[in-house]
């Protein structure tokens, strides 16, 4: 992998103001209000220097101030110049001199090597934008920046907006800053909180900030918060936590008791990593970073109590909701855990203690849910954006889009939570998948089902199936040339109950479990009629007869819902087989109404099912399953881990090479 050679390029990078085309992003620039409130140069608003702009989200800040940080006209030298006096983490985006892409330039801590700026190419693909050599893909640049403000991933440290932008409380202030464009960097507005006597008074004030105030993306001093232990409050626990995650904590700029948000951190205490080995520093430095991404959950930052999970989050993790579909066999089992969020405050600490004793699966589930509900994490952003987007309106092939996003989110969560080794990898994937279903599909299910229904009614598929079901009932088993007799009414009713459960479930994996249970009942019935050796020859007609009797045309929706949303790996397993059989049976039933088309030409329903599958293959081949998390222990600087894309069938030699490239260690 080529090092983005910006440190070197800086000095001799000739000014090339010509090679520039305004990015599409600029066109989105919000309309400017002619009346600007100019933020006080000292950052000292009436409400105090740290008054967070509570109404302005990080994304808005980024959007409004693009003219400042999106410097497409700037070359490497200009970027270096602008960032020269900025605190670590400050960044801007410029156009590459050498490649047709943008470059993210990040100010590094002084101690990190010969260059004080690291550069990262921003790759654009149909799926979105990503930093070169990172697996995290984002819908757009702003989203990417947002994410890297909170998660380092491959960066040495999280991004940080200039102080004035972080502290601006209103859109007008931001617009005033934005108006300056690149001039902002050298303007008096661009104040830096120097660690000096003038800032002394900041500290006591900081101590009194409420957790809510910390939630405002003030950036650098986001302190470390372990999502696996949401109740992890006091110093003692945090100490324990620190030791278990020591490699991570060591790059953090704040200790548990240090005041958050003192930008710029005076040369963060980085583990010095044998600088003599390093020639091209920034990327290598990145590799020495010691932590994985995203454990900083802003809401939980600071010395004060992190907020408890919201009701919504608790609901998502509550046993009732996880059991509701998790294990169909255990339905009706009593709720075994309290619903923590509804407890009075006095019991909170007890709840928190209780939380940490929960089974690892629950812990992982909670952590995953917390990450997904937090827009400040990359995965949270992805999930929340997905929810917004789907709610906004139907799109063609939206189920595939959702599945793709789910897979991506799962890869991100897995990279995030996998290293904790709370669960074996396969179990982890399973828990994460479930968790995603709860956080994404549960809220979306009514919308998606309604859209599917509308579409399948409009194109006549549902009507066709209803007619076929009617004909099949009228004709009985001979509709399928089967000599089988109908299962008994009791058996029929049992199967019907399973199918009704299937219709009620939101999670495709839970649905498949219900389907399997229904099929199992059918096999039991089949064996009494057709003996042990009964196979697909007998099963398919029997299923079709029973489906006709149950008369649930909605299964057509569900077959598509499941096929599209089930994790692709399951489609080749037993669930996939019986799902295929269900689709086959529904196609068969639909075709009864158009008897002339059988047996030689596939029915309309069958063709539809096949073309859906064809489409599905595409995203499946780009699946995000080929990710491998590799941790590397360096005696001098601790442990580094990276998520690598490993093609299927890669040999160890290939992997070694990949690691060598990615880790760049002698």
């Amino acid at each position: 992998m080529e090092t983005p050679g910006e440190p070197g390029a800086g000095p001799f990078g000739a000014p090339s103001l010509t090679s520039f085309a305004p990015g599409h992003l600029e066109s989105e620039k919000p309309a400017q209000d002619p009346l600007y409130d100019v933020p006080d140069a000292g950052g000292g608003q009436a409400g105090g220097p740290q008054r967070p702009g509570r109404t302005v989200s990080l994304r808005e800040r980024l959007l409004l101030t693009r003219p400042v940080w999106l410097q497409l006209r700037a070359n490497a030298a200009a970027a270096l110049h602008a960032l020269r006096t900025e605190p670590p983490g400050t960044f801007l985006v410029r156009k590459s001199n050498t490649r047709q892409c943008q470059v993210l330039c990040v100010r590094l801590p002084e101690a990190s090597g010969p260059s004080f700026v690291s550069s990262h190419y921003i790759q654009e693909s149909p799926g979105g934008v990503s930093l070169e050599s990172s697996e995290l893909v984002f819908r757009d640049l702003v989203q990417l920046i947002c994410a890297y403000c909170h998660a380092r991933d491959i960066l040495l440290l999280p991004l940080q907006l200039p102080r004035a932008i972080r502290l601006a409380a209103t859109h007008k202030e931001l617009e005033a800053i934005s108006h300056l464009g690149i001039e902002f960097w050298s303007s008096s507005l661009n104040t830096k909180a120097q660690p000096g006597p003038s800032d002394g008074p900041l500290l006591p004030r900081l101590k009194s900030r409420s957790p809510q105030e910390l939630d405002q993306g003030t950036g650098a001093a986001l302190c470390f918060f372990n999502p696996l232990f949401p109740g992890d409050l006091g110093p003692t626990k945090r100490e324990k936590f620190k030791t278990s995650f020591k490699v991570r904590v060591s790059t953090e700029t704040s200790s548990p008791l240090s005041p958050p948000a003192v930008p710029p951190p005076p040369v963060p205490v980085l583990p010095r990593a044998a600088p003599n080995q390093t020639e091209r520093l920034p990327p290598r430095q990145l590799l020495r970073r010691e932590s994985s991404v995203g454990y900083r959950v802003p809401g939980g930052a600071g010395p004060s109590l992190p907020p408890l999970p919201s009701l919504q989050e608790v609901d998502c993790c509550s046993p009732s909701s996880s059991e509701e579909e998790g294990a169909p066999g255990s339905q009706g089992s009593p709720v075994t855990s309290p619903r923590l969020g509804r407890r009075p405050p006095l019991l909170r600490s007890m709840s928190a203690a209780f939380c940490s004793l929960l089974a690892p699966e629950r812990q992982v589930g909670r952590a995953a849910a917390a990450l997904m509900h937090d827009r400040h994490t990359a995965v949270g952003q992805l999930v929340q954006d997905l929810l917004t987007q789907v709610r906004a309106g139907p799109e063609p092939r939206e189920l595939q889009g959702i599945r793709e996003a789910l897979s991506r989110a799962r890869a991100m969560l897995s990279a995030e939570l996998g290293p904790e080794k709370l669960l074996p990898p396969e179990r982890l994937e399973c828990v994460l998948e479930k968790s995603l279903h709860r956080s994404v599909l549960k809220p979306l299910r009514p919308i998606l089902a309604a859209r599917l229904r509308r579409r399948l009614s409009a194109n006549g598929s549902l009507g066709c199936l209803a007619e076929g079901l009617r004909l099949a009932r009228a004709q009985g088993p001979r509709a399928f040339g089967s000599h089988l007799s109908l299962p008994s009414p009791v058996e029929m009713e049992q199967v019907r109950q399973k199918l009704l459960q299937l219709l009620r479930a939101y999670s495709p994996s839970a649905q498949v479990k219900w389907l399997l249970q229904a099929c199992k009942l059918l096999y039991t019935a089949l064996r009494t009629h057709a003996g042990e050796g009964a196979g697909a020859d007998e099963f398919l007609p029997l299923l079709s007869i029973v489906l006709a009797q149950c008369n649930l045309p909605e299964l057509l929706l569900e077959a598509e819902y499941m096929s599209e949303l089930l994790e692709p790996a399951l489609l080749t397993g037993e669930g996939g087989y019986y799902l295929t059989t269900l689709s086959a049976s529904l196609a068969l039933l639909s075709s009864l109404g158009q008897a002339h088309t059988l047996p030689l030409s596939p029915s309309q329903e069958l063709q539809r099912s096949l073309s859906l599958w064809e489409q599905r293959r595409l995203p499946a081949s780009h699946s995000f399953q080929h990710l491998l998390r590799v941790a590397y222990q360096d005696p001098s600087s601790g442990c580094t881990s990276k998520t690598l894309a490993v093609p299927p069938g890669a040999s160890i030699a290939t992997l070694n090479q990949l690691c060598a490239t990615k880790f760049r260690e002698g």
Partner: protein
Amino acid sequence: MAAGGGGGGAAAGRAYSFKVVLLGEGCVGKTSLVLRYCENKFNDKHITTLQASFLTKKLNIGGKRVNLAIWDTAGQERFHALGPIYYRDSNGAILVYDITDEDSFQKVKNWVKELRKMLGNEICLCIVGNKIDLEKERHVSIQEAESYAESVGAKHYHTSAKQNKGIEELFLDLCKRMIETAQVDERAKGNGSSQPGAARRGVQIIDDEPQAQSGGGGCCSSG
């Protein structure tokens, strides 16, 4: 170096996953064939109790682990049109005919044509003359069947589900051929991973050297 699986989790050693579809006229003994194969040494930790239509088998062939998923299909003519949704993404197909039933051999020929048209040479074809215990009533000549198989790049096998003859060999042979095909694919495609089936197999790593001991004393230890 410590490696943690991101997706498939098949970091240690290699496991192939193959999908094999079972095609053939009704009553030729497809189901018995596969039941016989799987029940003999059926030692699966899956909760698969459904049996008969979908069966799995785990094999170790010369150190290569193979997970076989066998998809049975309804063979009656009226279900023929449903074939594609079953055989898509298959690595192998077992086309079964009854040696006493000329017609069932004709059906096999139809399937061969369709599979080659739809899936090309990626799929390993086995043509199986079942019920050799009824040799006396044979209506399909061995000569004809074998030369036909050869002409379409398929292999021909003689089996008796009843007497458990030829079945192990059939599946073992098929697995070896599918492994070969997969290896050729992998070599040819290098980094590309868009061949059907393989795309869903997750991460596969050839464990061609002892894994270096992790020096990570506690580096990734969980809290």
